């Protein structure tokens, strides 16, 4: 049944053809006898005699009329049809030089015997010159269109209303390496990058359904580089006059470079932003490695030298966390050492980037010995690697690695520039961070030092304060002590003064008391001695005289004591008046004349002053003078000479009493004017003095603003000098 339907279909087509084209004629070919019978028109067309043609001519005669260029083909096609098949359809040109060619098509059917050998064939020949011309013209314009389609830089395609692609331009074919024949659905799946595949198909299906045009970016497989490149794909529907979509026209324009460039720029901007945003460089570096996934790289890792000079991986990123763990495992298994000839260690050592634009499987297989490592590397499907050095203050301290693998693209110079740019930005930032940290450390150190200094200062101040307080306390204590002691001393002095005063008072009192009984003795013994009781025998008289003398001495002592006590207590009242010292001396000398006479001593008075008037208390000065003159006699031997001289100085009148007596020795020097001082020599015991005279004399002289002094006499004896101030002349 199918055979028949096919035959029917053919006849219909033939009819169609016939109807649309000019029928030339019909023919009959006896294949076994090699006779072709045609009608007149065919004969004319083929340039053979119609009469002969009616009878029958061999095939070759007709073949001669075929255009030389087609002849070989026609013969081949005839043979091929004869071998198999039931139909015959051969197009060719007929005509020779000088004639315009005509296109004809010979169509027929072949009858075969039981052995399937061809017996006869019959059919028609149709002139298809017009059609052919149109076809050629069409083909020409098609060619032109195709040429245009093939020359534009875009990739072009067309599809039917169901989305079946029926045309790809040359560019497309060149780009993807695929052409119409082998673009089946699963082949087509390789065309699109897995990441965009779903989206693209979804969008395309949506467009087909809705008739809406689309425009989107996706990656298309590029055969030459065996990688995926970015394109921007568009599709618009073509509608007929009725508005019905009859075809879809699509384009794809490569934007890979722009896209990658844009990605790089965006990544660089993000890198800068991250570097500027935080000082925590570990986090920042981690972010930087993550940011480049997947637009700029499939893998990214940052490695830095730690303090022990080992290479530490600060971050490693990939879109699949499982792969990240795998990479970390691998690194533990095969850690990089600084001495390795290539890779991160080499980059850190040399400070120069390493760029492997194309890594083939072969390269991996031959260059890596360790099977585990090799398998790992192969499993990653690495395409390209860039390792750029990270520096701090121009010293390489690490590296950033970009790896392209699953995305299926190869890195270019532009990517290397990007990698080095990122590395240098990181370097700058790290340098800044280091410098900042150093200065922060410095600052911290300074602050610490300042704090310590302040603490020290405070400590010192508090110590000083303590000490000061201690000292103050000590001082206060000392002062208190001093005050206390001063008080005690004052009290003691007061006590002493009081004691002294009470002693003086006592002496005074005692002396006073003593005077009465002594006076009593004087009266009673005196009465007897002075004859008030009658005559007494010389022997009794002598004894009484001794008693009387002794008593007189006692009285003298007591009187002296009282005088001294009085002057000590400051109770001497001087009644000053004008006294002529010359006169005074004369009086005193006269009084003492008997004393001197007794010891056969002489005393002379020499006056060298015109006016020897002084303003003094007469009685006390007299007593002083008496004392000195008396002493001069007492302390000199018999027949000695005493000289009294009155002289004057600028503002004083002086009396010198020079004796030839015992003199004053060195040891007695200092004590002469003290109480109870008595010269230590034989004479003094006979003297009967009280030892108070000179003490009292000095006091009296002092009260008169005068002086009493002594010096040794030239040869022997002493010179006592008293000086009294001259009266102030008004």
């Amino acid at each position, binding site marked *: 049944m199918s055979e028949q339907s096919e035959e029917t279909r053919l006849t219909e087509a033939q009819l169609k053809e016939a109807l649309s084209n000019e029928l030339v004629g019909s023919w009959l070919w006896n294949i076994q006898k090699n006779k072709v019978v045609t009608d007149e028109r065919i004969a004319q067309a083929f340039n053979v005699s119609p009469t002969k043609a009616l009878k029958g001519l061999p095939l070759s005669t007709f073949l001669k009329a075929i255009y030389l260029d087609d002849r070989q083909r026609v013969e081949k096609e005839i043979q091929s049809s004869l071998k198999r098949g039931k139909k015959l359809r051969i197009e060719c040109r007929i005509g020779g030089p000088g004639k315009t060619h005509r296109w004809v098509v010979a169509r027929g059917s072949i009858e075969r015997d039981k052995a399937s050998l061809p017996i006869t064939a019959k059919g028609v020949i149709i002139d298809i010159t017009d059609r052919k011309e149109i076809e050629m013209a069409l083909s020409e314009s098609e060619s032109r269109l195709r040429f245009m389609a093939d020359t534009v830089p875009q990739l072009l395609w067309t599809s039917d209303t169901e989305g079946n692609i029926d045309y790809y331009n040359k560019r497309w074919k060149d780009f993807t390496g695929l052409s119409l024949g082998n673009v089946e659905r699963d082949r087509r799946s390789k065309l699109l990058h897995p990441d965009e595949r779903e989206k693209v198909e979804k969008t395309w299906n949506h467009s087909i359904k809705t008739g809406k045009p689309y425009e989107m970016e996706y990656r298309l497989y590029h055969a030459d580089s065996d990688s995926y490149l970015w394109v921007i794909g568009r599709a618009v529907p073509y509608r007929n006059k009725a508005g019905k979509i009859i075809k879809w026209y699509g384009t794809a324009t490569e934007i890979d470079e722009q896209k990658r460039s844009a990605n790089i720029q965006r990544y660089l901007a993000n890198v800068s932003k991250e570097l500027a945003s935080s000082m925590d460089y570990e986090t920042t570096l981690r972010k930087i490695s993550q940011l480049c996934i997947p637009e700029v790289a499939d893998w990214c890792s940052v490695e830095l030298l730690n303090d022990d000079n080992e290479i530490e991986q600060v971050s490693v990123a990939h879109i699949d966390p499982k792969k990240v763990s795998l990479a970390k495992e691998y690194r533990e298994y095969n850690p990089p050492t600084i001495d390795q000839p290539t890779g991160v260690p080499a980059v850190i050592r040399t400070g120069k980037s390493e760029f492997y634009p194309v890594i083939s499987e072969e390269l991996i297989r031959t260059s890596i010995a360790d099977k585990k490592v090799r398998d790992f590397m192969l499993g990653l499907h690495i395409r390209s690697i860039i390792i750029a050095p990270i520096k701090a203050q121009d010293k390489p301290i690490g590296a950033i690695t970009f790896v392209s693998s699953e995305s299926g693209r190869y890195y270019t110079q532009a990517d290397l520039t990007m990698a080095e740019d990122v590395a240098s930005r990181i370097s700058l930032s790290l340098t800044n961070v280091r410098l900042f940290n150093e200065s922060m450390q410095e600052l911290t150190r300074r602050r610490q030092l300042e704090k310590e200094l302040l603490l020290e200062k405070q400590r010192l101040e508090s110590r000083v304060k303590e000490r000061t307080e201690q000292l103050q306390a000590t001082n206060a204590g000392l002062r208190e002590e001093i005050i206390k002691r001063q008080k005690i001393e004052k009290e003691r002095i007061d006590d002493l003064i009081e004691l002294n005063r009470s002693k003086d008072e006592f002496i005074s009192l005692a002396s*006073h008391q003593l*005077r*009465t*009984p*002594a*006076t*009593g003795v*004087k*009266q*009673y013994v*005196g*009465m007897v001695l*002075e004859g*008030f009781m009658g005559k007494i025998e010389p022997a009794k008289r002598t004894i009484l005289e001794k008693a009387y003398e002794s008593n007189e001495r006692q*009285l003298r002592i*007591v*009187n002296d004591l009282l*005088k001294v006590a009085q002057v000590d207590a400051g109770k*001497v*009242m001087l009644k000053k008046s004008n006294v002529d010292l010359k006169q005074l001396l004369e009086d005193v000398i006269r009084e003492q004349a008997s004393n001197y006479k007794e010891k056969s001593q002489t005393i002379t008075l020499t006056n060298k002053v015109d006016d020897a008037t002084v303003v003094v208390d007469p*009685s006390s000065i007299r007593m002083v003078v008496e004392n000195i003159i008396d002493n001069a006699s007492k302390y000199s031997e018999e027949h000695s000479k005493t000289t009294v001289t009155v002289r004057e100085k600028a503002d004083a009148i002086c009396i010198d009493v020079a004796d030839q007596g015992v003199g004053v020795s060195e040891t007695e020097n200092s004590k002469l004017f003290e109480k109870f001082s008595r010269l230590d020599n034989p004479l003094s015991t006979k003297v009967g003095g009280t030892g108070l005279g000179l003490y009292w004399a000095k006091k009296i002289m002092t009260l008169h603003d005068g002086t009493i002094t002594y010096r040794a006499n030239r040869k022997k004896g002493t010179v006592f000098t008293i000086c009294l101030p001259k009266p102030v002349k008004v």
Partner: protein
Amino acid sequence: MHKILIVEDEDILREAYYATLSSQGYQCDVAENGKVALEKCQTTTYDLILLDLMMPVMSGVKFLEKFMPNVPDGTEVVVLSNLSSGVELEQAMDLGVYRCLLKSDVSPKELVAAVRNELGDEG
């Protein structure tokens, strides 16, 4: 016969002066202090009063204050004291005493001489 009043608080001295002066023929009275002396002066007018200054009950100066304003014409007062100087002596002199004798200086003979002098006696 001249009358002498001996005003002296010390027994031993009073008796000595009394003995001395009586032996020379003077009529002597004694008083141991100023108060007694005043009493005695009220009943008797003396030619000479020998007056000690330092006495209990009433001192010599106090006596003079009381006595001197109304001193009888013929009465002489001589201070016989142990003070050689001092306020009391000054006061006594201010009150009209012209003569002072220092007890410890005066032997019996000298006392008699001084009394005779005052009274204008010879012998």
